[in-house]
């Protein structure tokens, strides 16, 4: 994976340079405008973000910032019953970040419950509960010291026949 990324990186850089050399008037490349890139990536879904993270180093760095994943997680939720969004961000960030929340909890939960368009409040709450357990285990070296990762959420990791 790493070599692929590096290769792609080299290739895209080369291509960029080449294109710029060939067409000095082609002034705009997305990579020159990371803010714009961020805006675009804010609107992607989970899998696309993962793919985007493999494009080049710049994209990777954008995709690994938590705000992109936060946007993903918050997109369909809206305001959860007056829940303080800022507060939620802080808590989630503290517990390990939105990216981890998505990969460890939200995605398996959604997959298993059937990928409906919007996320219900209950799904979010459930995911957050599970995430907190995950955080608890990680914090306490239940995972970090030993060989096995924390296993309370093991049931989410296993392949399951989704009906």
């Amino acid at each position, binding site marked *: 994976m790493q070599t692929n990324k590096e290769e792609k990186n080299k290739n895209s850089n080369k291509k960029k340079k080449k294109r710029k050399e060939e067409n000095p008037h082609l002034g705009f490349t997305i990579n020159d405008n990371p803010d714009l890139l961020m805006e675009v990536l804010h609107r992607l879904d989970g899998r696309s973000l993962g793919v985007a993270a493999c494009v080049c180093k710049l994209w990777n760095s954008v995709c690994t910032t938590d705000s992109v994943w936060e946007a993903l997680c918050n997109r369909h939720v809206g305001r959860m019953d007056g829940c303080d969004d800022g507060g939620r961000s802080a808590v989630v960030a503290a*517990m390990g970040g939105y990216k981890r929340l998505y990969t460890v909890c939200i995605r398996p*939960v959604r997959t298993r419950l059937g990928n409906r368009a919007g996320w219900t409040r*209950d799904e979010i709450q459930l995911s957050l509960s599970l*995430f907190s357990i995950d955080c608890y285990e990680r914090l306490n070296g239940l995972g970090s010291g030993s060989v096995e990762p924390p296993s309370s959420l093991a*049931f989410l990791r*296993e*392949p399951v026949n989704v009906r």
Partner: protein
Amino acid sequence: MKREHPDSGGSGSGGDFSEPAAASANGKNKCMEEPPDAGMDELLATLGYKVRSSEMADVAQKLEQLEMAMGGICGGGGGGLGFCGGDEGVVSHLAMDTVHYNPSDLSTWLESMLSELNAPPLPPPSAASTASNLPPPPPTEILLDDPLAPAESSTVTTVDFSHNRHGHQIYTSCPSDYELKAIPGRIVYGSDDSGPDKKRVKPSKPSSATTVDLPAASSSSSTSRPVVLVDSQETGIRLVHTLMACAEAVQQENLKAADALVKQISLLAASQGGPMRKVATYFGDALARRIYRRIYPSEDLSLDWAFSDALQMHFYETCPYLKFAHFTANQAILEAFAGHSRVHVIDFGMKQGMQWPALMQALALRPGGPPSFRLTGIGPPQPDNSDALQQVGWKLAQLAETIHVEFEYRGFVASSLADLEPYMLDVRPSEVESVAVNSVFELHRLLARPGAIDKVLNTVKALKPKIFTVVEQEANHNSPVFVERFNESLHYYSTMFDSIEGCGGVAASGGGSLSPGSNSQDQVMTEVYLGQQIYNVVACEGADRVERHETLAQWRDRLGSAGYAPVHLGSNAFKQASMLLALFAGGDGYRVEENDGCLMLGWHTRPLITTSAWQIGQTRTSDDEPPISGLTRPESDSP
């Protein structure tokens, strides 16, 4: 078996399949006898076959012939992996056309089968010699192994469970008096699928297929292939009857009979597969312990606690029961604490504190910000004097700090909850602080000593909690009549084990980032955890018997007469619970039910654990109405 459940159905129908496959397994395999003195005749007779020991070699050879005859047809598909997908039409054709008489008499049946199928010309000499090189199986023992374990070494016979289940259709037209539902043929040759094809396909199938089949088969015959010829349903029923009879004998102090029956239980249990076998083994062991109580020392409960903590973690990870309990109790507590700025939770069974991260997170995210959260954890003294409670407190404090919740912790060691007095728990006045008391699987232990439960309920009342959440097993394992207790717990734990199989089984196959071994290890440890409970229910008496589960109705009565009123768990709890269950691998077997405000989690139709919530009931001023719990009390609104 009282419980009707997919497994036995599955194994029943899975094994409903070909006799030749089973029988040929019998022949080819070196059969291992269990107890040295039981003759082959008797053993097979228990299983429903009538074979004379003298005829064994002959039977075996005929079985091989049959095997070859059938293997030849199917062999076309993929060499050694002999099963083609059973052709439905052909299968039923054979099923309808062939007539089987008295299949339990193996030798005559085999002759009829062979003549029926018009055994093809013997396979080429090489194959034939391979076949005949198999030493005629001496009257050795049948390896009664776990029939669901796939045959490791043999390629031909390797289990294709789905195929065998499919292939079993051949013999559904067996005469009705004989129900051969052999243990899933997945362990034996899948060549049952091939049988019917024989009729349609010319016998002159390239015997290269058989050649491929045989060496694989012969090579594996030397290693013990797990094979069981068992009428599994019949033995299952017999097993249950034996268990119940043994319990009767024990109750009547007829120890000799009980002893004999216990031995029979272990024999019969070995012939079963999957959860039934494990349950039967545990119950048989427990009965043995009860019978020989003088030999087994009374259990050292303190050791048990430390061990059972670790075991409970495995239980927590493998199946949803504890998670369900935690999430539903948390929801009730969260709702009760709405609007309060200082909250205090008292946990009667702290263990590893897995319930509280989720509550802390929910409190942190509640509108209006988190309250100041105080937790008192109560636990038994540890045998190695390690301060487990304090450690758990530290861990929770770390989490609380991470999510910015003001946190205070106190650990409290008590060997029994009845030792607690309200003043010990340092509860602040209720204007300042709201209290919740939480008990997961702890209250039933108090029933072992008279008066303990009442004392504890009074203590809790004195704490003036906003809510008292109780999670208990949904079963009556506290009847003074031993046989009743036994039967109830047999039913209950059978269902439990089935459900573990449901979620554990998939886990074992998946593995994810964990090694496959660890998943099944989790399952094993979970079973040990439940096994400890079984031992306690069956083998212990008096103060030692702490697993005194009672049903929701009984708890309702008890709590009602102690002055508590039920609090209905809201739909939030129900939704979260249902969603949680849907995440589990065996998800479709679990059921959440709402029972008059309490939530019950069960497996299929049987509820297994119940979460209920209580508050201090208002003073009873009912004039004519008797103080029936719950019916006359005003209930608090759940937000």
